């Protein structure tokens, strides 16, 4: 079965996580480096994870995609196309910003932000959609479909489709569509059709189910533009390929700006695409500790979370074997997170592998911790981060404090955080969380509604009201 093909890493690496202690991290790193490189793992298997647990009907399409991708990635013309779009359309390279005031809260270590939030469409998602949309064109497909959680991937897909003249249909859980109404409108403005999904938990996993059903029926004309580094082969390796630019840039930038590699790299993990993109740049640098922060929701002992690696166990979902939140019967458990983009009960198979060999440490961050970090970044750096990315920020605060506690001058230590997206889409959620809204959903003291275009009832909000409540 999933008996590992290459992944080119050593089998002897430590099982378990090496919970962030420096010693364990480096020992593990040495162990895998002795066995070769962890970069560019081609799939279909990453250790025993990955593969193709898919209906036969879709295998031909996956084969076609794999073949097209393999040719494209060694085609100078294709690579030049991607590079040109990255430079002149997405706005790459994205900045690496030192967060000096934020750093004071992270034990005084130097924190750098990889600014994927500054990309066109506001997140890292654009890297993948442009690449896949170009592949769709190469395959002669005229239509792309996509799933979306927070709406970032849906917006990015609609954008790429508009740019390249493709029809676009986006499946979005009805619950998510309510949470991210503004992104629904964005997708529609870009010419996409948004289909609210009312099955199951009405979130990302159910949107993927419906997208797969659409794909089975329309595979001749349609490419499934999967938004994360998960799913059946070749998606995990393919999506990572288009996001590797994040890590490649970050590595070069930190060397240029500081003259050395970072001590730690942090990213948030839903399906894990932004994380695998930045991690990839540092996988073979044994001195760099790598951390993935999952959505701990209301707390991992509450059952309401999306901490797939922390608490899940291996299973198959949406085409790949990977860690999975499931019950005793193998039924997928509904995940919970304040962040729609992390609210997914699975995770990309390469992350499962990197966890098992101990190269990457995965930890949960609760909603509350993420929102504290969200506010902190707003107020110390003038940057409103996506709530997804706020999980990475909260993790970086912990990592920074741990690094500082190890002794030495903390200002000599460096942490890079992948700021995977900006928080414009999360303003309503944040305003709600921080008690900034009145009972009508208006920002207190104003008639400004965050809920919908028509929500701003003319009833004047009492002037004193805003200060009185909560």
């Amino acid at each position: 079965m999933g008996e590992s093909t290459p992944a080119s890493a050593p089998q002897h690496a430590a099982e378990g996580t090496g919970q962030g202690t420096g010693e364990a991290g480096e020992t593990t790193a040495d162990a895998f480096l002795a066995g070769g490189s962890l970069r560019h793992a081609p799939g279909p298997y990453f250790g025993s994870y990955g593969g193709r647990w898919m209906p036969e009907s879709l295998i031909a399409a996956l084969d076609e995609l794999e073949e097209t991708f393999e040719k494209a990635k060694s085609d100078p013309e294709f690579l030049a196309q991607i590079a040109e779009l990255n430079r002149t359309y997405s706005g790459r390279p994205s900045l690496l910003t030192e967060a000096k005031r934020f750093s004071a809260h992270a034990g005084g270590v130097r924190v750098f932000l990889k600014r994927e939030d500054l990309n066109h469409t506001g997140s890292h998602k654009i890297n993948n959609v442009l690449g896949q949309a170009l592949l769709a064109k190469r395959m002669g497909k005229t239509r792309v479909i996509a799933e979306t959680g927070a709406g970032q991937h849906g917006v990015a897909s609609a954008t790429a489709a508009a740019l390249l003249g493709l029809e676009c249909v986006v499946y979005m859980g009805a619950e998510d569509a309510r949470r991210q109404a503004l992104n629904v409108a964005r997708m529609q403005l870009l010419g996409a059709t948004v289909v609210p999904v009312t099955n199951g938990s009405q979130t990302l996993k159910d949107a993927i189910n419906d997208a797969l059903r659409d794909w089975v029926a329309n595979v001749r004309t349609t490419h499934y533009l999967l938004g994360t580094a998960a799913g059946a082969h070749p998606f995990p390796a393919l999506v990572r390929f288009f996001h590797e630019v994040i890590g490649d840039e970050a590595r070069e930038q930190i060397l240029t700006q500081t003259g050395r590699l970072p001590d730690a790299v942090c990213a948030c993990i839903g399906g894990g695409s932004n994380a695998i993109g930045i991690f990839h740049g540092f996988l073979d640098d044994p001195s760099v500790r790598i951390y993935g922060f999952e959505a701990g929701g209301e707390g991992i002992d509450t059952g309401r979370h999306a901490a797939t690696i922390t608490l899940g166990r291996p299973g198959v979902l949406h085409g790949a074997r990977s860690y999975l939140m499931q019950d005793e019967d193998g039924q997928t458990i509904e995940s919970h997170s304040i962040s729609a983009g992390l609210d997914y009960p699975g995770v990309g198979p390469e992350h499962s592998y990197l966890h098992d060999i101990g190269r990457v440490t995965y930890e949960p961050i609760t909603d509350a911790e993420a929102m504290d970090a969200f506010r902190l970044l707003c107020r110390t750096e003038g940057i409103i981060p996506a709530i997804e990315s706020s999980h990475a920020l909260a993790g970086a605060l912990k990592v920074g404090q741990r690094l500082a506690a190890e002794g030495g001058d903390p200002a000599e230590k460096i942490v890079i955080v992948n700021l995977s997206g900006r928080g414009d889409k999360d303003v309503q959620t944040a305003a709600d969380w921080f008690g900034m809204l009145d009972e009508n959903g208006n920002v207190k003291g104003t008639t400004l509604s965050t809920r919908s275009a028509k929500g701003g009832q003319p009833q004047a909000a009492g002037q004193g009201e805003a200060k009185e409540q909560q």
Partner: protein
Amino acid sequence: MSKSAAKIDQALAGGRAALIGYLPAGYPSVEESIEAGIELARGGADLIEIGVPYSDPVMDGSVIQAATTEALARGFRVASVFDVVRGITEATADLGTAVLVMTYWNPVVRMGVDEFARRLAEAGGAGLITPDLIPDEAEEWFEASDRYGLDRVFLVAPSSTPERMAMTAKACRGFTYAVSLMGVTGARTAVDAAARDVVEAARAAGAERVCVGLGVSTAEHVREIADYADGVIVGSALVSAQRDGGPSAVGRLASELSAGLSRTTAAGA
């Protein structure tokens, strides 16, 4: 010999294709799904597929999704599928009905492939139909199905290449499940033109017994497919009957459908 194959051959020897009916376990209750299965066999189904309700049924359309979601909401547990298989198999011993389980793969993985196979065999089950497991990933299932003498039914589709058809046909035991169209389960007005091509391609690739499913809901569809396939698989229409009229309605529909099976009477009767 394979229990499913024997049952199909018996039908063929009688001058007709086999009728295969699908019902989800635990819908609307474990007991009623057993009763419906028995009615289905009495109504003329030679083989029965019992579906395991699953949280993420990507190959299913709205009718089956609604039924399995309801079963799960009412607390269906995977282990109950063995009770359903046993209940139907024992009550239809006189007919020799072959009862298979159709399941997405993760519930099997979670229980343990060997454990699932052992319990299925103990319950008298004939084998498994696996809509999201391809032979490429099925090594563990090959071993377990050999160990317990179970049939393994993989799917072939209009999109399958000749190479994959051959590989899959070889991997199957019992029969090969030919998907009639590119899509998910659910009634359609007409049988997709691709159905006959898939059957022919599967035969050319070495498949011994080929049964056609997806989008087959009426006696007219059955009649059309029975003309060239070894078996005809009906799912959503039976689930709708169970939903609207319970086990007796399932039995009535099975009788209607089975009237379409006979190759010789198709023209006259």
